[in-house]
């Protein structure tokens, strides 16, 4: 993490937009919600980090070289097309795009998971994929109305 969450909030309040949206911090947080629950001021920190990710993706200012944005994009594309995610394909795709050598390293684990029936290469999907894609298209937020309210609220 280049900036702690406390510092990120300070940067937003000071209007340091440039450094805030280029920070790698939102991409390293686990979305475990501990901070949101513990915060004595009830600041929705997890929601804030998600909002920062949305802004960074929109403005293409997310950090390169980190696996998280790559995996997130792969996950979103997979779910948008098939309605379900398949862990094995997601992992393979992420490693191919970020660190192919890891595939070799983890091949043994993958094989063991498969032997135990905990991983398979069969791709999951909902029955009517066209319906799901139509639903997501209908719900998609147009660029003109991008919700940045959480970040604005912190100011």
């Amino acid at each position: 993490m280049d900036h702690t969450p406390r510092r990120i909030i300070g940067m937003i309040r000071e209007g340091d937009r440039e450094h805030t949206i280029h920070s790698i911090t939102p991409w390293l947080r686990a979305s475990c919600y501990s901070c949101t629950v513990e915060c004595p001021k009830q600041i929705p920190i997890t929601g804030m980090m998600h909002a920062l990710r949305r802004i960074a993706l929109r403005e293409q200012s997310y950090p390169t070289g980190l696996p998280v944005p790559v995996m997130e994009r792969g996950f979103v594309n997979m779910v948008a097309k098939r309605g379900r995610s398949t862990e094995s394909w997601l992992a393979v795709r992420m490693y191919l795009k970020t660190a192919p050598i890891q595939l070799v390293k983890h091949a043994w684990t993958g094989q063991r998971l498969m032997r135990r029936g905990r991983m398979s290469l069969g791709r999951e999907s909902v029955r009517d994929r066209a319906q799901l894609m139509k639903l997501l298209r209908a719900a998609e937020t147009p660029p003109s109305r991008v919700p940045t309210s959480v970040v604005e609220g912190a100011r």
Partner: protein
Amino acid sequence: MTRAYYPGCSMSGTERAYEGSLLAVSETLGTGLNELDDWNCCGASALASVDEDRAFALGARNLALTESRVQGEAPVDPVAARTGCYRALLEAERSMAEQQAVANRIDGALQAVGLRYDGRARVRHPIDMVVNDIGLERISRSGPRDPPGGGMKTLVTTARAAASIRPGFKGVRT
């Protein structure tokens, strides 16, 4: 009480042990959990990081499918096994309940594909169901004697993933 089991994408994969325990315990306790037909991914935290409305739409489709199981006004509870799914579905449910603008947008998207959500489906977590619907007393009295596949101990240890026991989360009062 009508329930539907929402497995999510990893229950038949890496979380197989959890699914085995959950279903074994459910059967012993007679919770009537059976899989929601044609469920879709909840979007996890990744979709919320890209587009909130699309994440809510994914959640809303599952809620609408759950409701279509029971006609009329009766509530019906989708039980989301994985903490991430539980949280994502709950966020969709709450955002629609609390923000009229969100509800209108998502209702419109559902309508475009012939689905409808009335607000009868209330997302539950297995621990919530076990503690608040069935009750610890009944479990200790007649509880499962570790059915094959793991049983209560495995269910409780795997279900208690970090984020599920947050006090702010509706219904989970453990």
